[in-house]
């Protein structure tokens, strides 16, 4: 009996410190941020008098925030589609018995090891368009060398492009990750399935669409979750590469939050941006976690 009691208690005691830390530093803090977003604390010293939804109303009426939300949607959509398409293409091509596959894989994946700050600095110079008077620089200069002048644009300095230029750098960094996930997935599909389809007279394209892609759906879902939450939170890359840009054309909510909170000391306003950001990420994550949990319990 005594032994049984200890067997139940000690495991809980062992993970208690971690659980307490997460309870306070994740859930407690989220609650506190939510509370701050309902107060008047918009100066350096705390003021916890309640303001109701005032901060949210101000925020939604703020043109900068409206641009930010639009940028966030554009960034997330383009980033996801490009990473999935490039990652899948490279995985299928690398699966064709390629000589030097290991080298290609290493080259496609190494950007994952870098910080967004390094990536941002490199791409800031690569996508620096130069000027009409002094001449082109960066990628534009490369296009000139290659006789592809028609591809030259203003990149992130052009408000019509803005955040889409940041997508290029982000895709450069993360598409190799999708490649690696899909490649692992492809190699996990038994050959028998492909052979069976071939015997039934399916073409390789039909096998790709009707056999391989459906089987890779869990990987696609995992990639969408991981990339999606990175896209919604993107901050460092914007800081290092462009800043908010011309007319906030490169601005994102995460950047606006930090600026509002720690530069302008408008804590309640910053907390309201953070809370909206958290809700966006939760819409993506919570169903996925609930789904994983249910699968876990069934097994």
């Amino acid at each position, binding site marked *: 009996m005594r032994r049984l009691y200890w067997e*139940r208690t*000690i495991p*809980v005691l*062992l993970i208690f410190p*971690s*659980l307490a830390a997460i309870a306070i*530093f*994740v859930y*407690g*803090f989220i609650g*506190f*941020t939510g509370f701050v977003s309902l107060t008047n604390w918009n100066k350096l010293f705390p003021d916890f008098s309640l303001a109701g939804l005032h901060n949210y109303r101000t925020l939604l009426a703020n043109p900068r925030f409206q641009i930010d939300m639009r940028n966030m949607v554009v960034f997330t959509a383009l980033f996801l589609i490009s990473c999935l398409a490039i990652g899948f293409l490279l995985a*299928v*091509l690398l*699966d*064709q018995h*390629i000589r030097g596959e290991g080298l*290609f894989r290493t*080259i496609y*994946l*190494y*950007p*994952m*090891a*870098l*910080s*967004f*700050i*390094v*990536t941002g*600095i*490199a*791409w800031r*110079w690569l996508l620096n368009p130069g000027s009409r008077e002094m*001449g*082109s620089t960066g990628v534009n*200069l490369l296009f000139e060398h290659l006789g592809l002048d028609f591809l030259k644009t203003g990149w992130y300095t052009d408000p019509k492009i803005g955040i889409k230029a940041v997508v290029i750098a982000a895709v*450069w960094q993360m598409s190799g990750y999708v490649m*690696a*996930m899909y490649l692992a997935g*492809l*190699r996990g599909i038994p*050959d028998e399935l492909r052979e069976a389809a071939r015997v039934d007279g399916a073409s*390789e394209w039909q096998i*790709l669409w009707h056999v391989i892609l459906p089987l890779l759906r869990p990987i696609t879902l*995992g990639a969408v*979750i*991981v990339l999606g*939450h990175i896209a919604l*939170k993107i*901050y460092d890359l914007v*800081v290092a590469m462009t800043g908010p840009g011309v007319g906030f054309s490169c601005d994102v909510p995460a950047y606006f*939050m*930090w600026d509002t909170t720690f530069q302008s000391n408008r*804590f309640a306003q910053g907390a309201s941006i*953070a809370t909206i950001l958290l809700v966006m990420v939760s819409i993506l*994550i*919570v169903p*996925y976690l609930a789904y*994983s949990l249910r699968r876990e319990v069934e097994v």
Partner: protein
Amino acid sequence: MRAIPYRGLRLRWSRLFIYAILILFAAFYLMPVYVLVVTGMKSFAEVSLYHMWDLPKGIHFDSFKKAWLGGFGFEGISRNFFNSVYVTVPATIISAMLGSINGYVLSKWKFRGSDVVFTLLLFGMFIPYQSILIPLVQVLYKMGLYGTIPGLIFVHVVYGIPICTLIFRNYYATVPTELIEAAKIDGATIFGIYRHVLFPLSMPGFVVVMIWQFTSIWNDFLFAVTVAHNPNIQPLTVGLNNLAGSYIVEWNVQMAGALMAAMPTLLVYIFLGRYFMRGLLAGSLKG
């Protein structure tokens, strides 16, 4: 393993076309590193934005020296580099130990509701940290940890708990439960089983977790810039960003600095790539 060699899907594209696409993408991925290396090695006299694709005329390390040691009116990144080491090394080791214990309990000593607890933990690795920064700064300040290296270590350990627990839990799930049961029958305690059965098997798990934590803490910017306001303790990402944001620092010095900042994680990736991959796949829950 397989009786017949793996064939996979056979695209009927010309081999030349397939290789052309693969090489084109390789060029795209290598382009930034080419510019970083080439620019970093140029002498100050030959650096020009309008010749950024040209190869250097000789190998010069002036830019690296200047980025590392600083120059007129700006600090080099050497101090930031060592700050990053002081934060990353202890935080990585502590995270791995915590993750190992948590993973052990959540995989081999499940209690009622442990799966729910695990899922609640996992949520912590997806949240946008903006939603905890305001109270974090307040609490660190009250604890006397705001703007200190131990403060940053603490923050990385706490917010590293979910991912480290996840990786170890999935790793220990592959250890047969019979081993644990047999040890229990032999009268081993929960600590004895960990020390004599599980820990000796844990090396690969530790490598994966430590590489993951090392890379993400080394590359972190948001916590660093929020918690370390004092230039004396700012980690590398913050120092590098300051370097790049300064109008008096030449762009070849910025490039050299970026390359040096990237070196430790790049080396880890090149030499321990296999484990790096496992960490990445674990990051997507089921792998």
